[in-house]
């Protein structure tokens, strides 16, 4: 009837992992900038790793990240490593839509075949892309889960947002994903507030994968978990990398996690990318002074 009723249909939905062309770039980001404050002409020059600060000395604006560019192919995993203030989490939040960037472009192969900038799309379109084609695992389960509804309900919510409309199918997929995350079906109807930290993260991962997204973002997914529990979560993610064909971006301050999960890595400091390359090269032949410092500081 009315034009408002028709939502944009340019999003291509992937029903099966195998249909993805593994050679395609799934996610491309160019010149991403995010800031807190109105900004001024000096912000770029006065901030960054050479100045060891994110704060512009002239106007007080915090440049959370700037000049960030990267591309991730389907089935590949990019790591972003850095310390506090590096901007790594900001990058993820901008991609997922939790934060509005000041500039830059992001394109997804599944949105307008990568020809359109997600950052300039309407909020309605961004939400649709996020619901159908992206997944995010937050550092804290409370940010990524609804602790008051069941674990299965948390996974179901993503499916429902992606317009699944059969309870039996929703329940089957939710149960299947939770089982793969080693959460027994008997606990599917329990709210995750009753779960351990590791289990909560696994519910988040199941939720992030529910709608078969093209891109999954993982933000410090193992922080706060015991080492043995971390191992279990990482092992599951490794398995998923192999089978799901999603493009992943893993943010971590832990080089061990990066080494395990990511073939390629970007190193960030004070909001800028200082080095990027193959993970083994970054860790064994670091070039930038900061990367060398980072790598030598850890007995990885």
């Amino acid at each position, binding site marked *: 009837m009315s034009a408002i009723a028709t939502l944009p249909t340019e999003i291509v939905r992937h029903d099966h992992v195998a249909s993805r062309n593994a050679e395609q770039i799934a996610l491309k980001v160019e010149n991403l900038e995010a800031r807190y404050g109105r900004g001024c002409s000096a912000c770029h020059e006065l901030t960054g790793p050479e100045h060891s600060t994110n704060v512009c000395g002239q106007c007080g604006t915090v440049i959370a990240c700037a000049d960030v560019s990267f591309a991730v192919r389907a089935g590949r995993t990019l790591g972003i490593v850095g310390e506090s203030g590096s901007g790594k989490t900001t990058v993820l939040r901008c991609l997922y839509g939790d934060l509005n960037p000041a500039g830059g472009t992001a394109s997804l192969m599944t949105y307008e075949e990568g020809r359109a900038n997600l950052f300039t799309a309407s909020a309605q379109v961004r939400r649709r892309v996020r619901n159908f084609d992206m997944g995010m695992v937050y550092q804290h389960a409370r940010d990524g889960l609804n602790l008051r509804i069941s674990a*299965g309900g948390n996974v179901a919510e993503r499916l*429902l947002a992606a317009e699944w409309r059969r*309870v039996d199918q929703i329940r089957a997929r939710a149960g299947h994903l939770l089982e793969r995350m080693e959460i027994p079906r008997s606990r599917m109807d329990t709210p995750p507030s009753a779960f351990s930290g590791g289990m909560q993260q696994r519910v988040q991962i199941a939720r992030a994968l529910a709608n078969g997204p093209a891109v999954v973002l993982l933000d410090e997914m193992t922080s706060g978990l015991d080492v043995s529990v971390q191992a279990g979560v990482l092992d599951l993610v490794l398995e998923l990398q192999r089978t799901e064909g999603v493009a992943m971006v893993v943010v971590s301050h832990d080089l061990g996690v990066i080494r395990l999960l990511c073939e390629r890595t970007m190193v960030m400091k004070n909001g800028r990318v200082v080095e990027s390359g193959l993970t083994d090269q970054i860790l064994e032949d670091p070039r930038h002074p900061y990367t060398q410092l980072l790598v030598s500081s850890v007995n990885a």
Partner: protein
Amino acid sequence: MNEAVVSEIPHDASRTQSGTHSGYSYAFLDELTKKSVRRAILKAVAVPGYQVPFGSTELPIARGWGTGGLQVTLSLIGPGDVLKVIDQGSDDSVNAVNIRQLVELTAPGVDTTAATEEATIIQTRHRIPEAPLHADQIMVFQVPLPEPLRVVERRESETRRMHAEADYGRIWVALYEDVVQHGRITRSAGYPVVVNGRHVMTPSPIPKWDVPRLHQAPFLSLFGAGREKRIYAVPPLTDVVPLAFDDYPFAIEDFDGAHCARCGSDDTFLVEVPQPDGSSVMSCSDESWCEARRTERGQS
């Protein structure tokens, strides 16, 4: 009473006519207020199911007693209109009587009726009359709580965002959890619907029985929430689809073959009516419809 009717358009009845009983503006509200309400109504009709905020004005009826519906009615009504007011199907409730009296007092040229087929405007709380309605009639619903998402989200800022982005996963998951816990959807009155394929709306606390009447209806439906200061609308011939799953579809109430104790019909919405002796019988909720049926059958 009708001797005081004026034949000209009553732009400012209190000034042009010293003979009115009330001394108020025509239909109580001044013309500027009526214009602002009508503007809100037009916006509401332009975006079916979307809640338009409006400046809900003072009335000689307390909030929570239909002030929203009343403001809609008073803004639309004019000489030649025939008004019916029902309260859960009854024309004779105290509230319905009071509202009719206010209109009779302040809107000369307007008749009131209990006969659905004679009315041009039908103001209602909790029911749609059983009689078939046609394109020249307007239904005005009194709405206590216009926000269908309030059950899953307390914050107004967040529910507004959810509507703006068509991000309805959380209301869907509430229904999903309902099915998982109870084996069916247990919601009854005020069942959430999708209007024109876009906005989720509450049809006011009408029973499920009445919800299918809204779908592709020949008449205009207007919804007024006075205390919450929102107006929304369903234009004629608009899709109104209850939220339900393909394998758990929407179903109206089932009276198990019961008949109305007064008129004998088995195809109307029945309510339980306590009897003096402590028992109860099932009887038509729509009393004027029931009365008409009894007359037909020579039972009065």
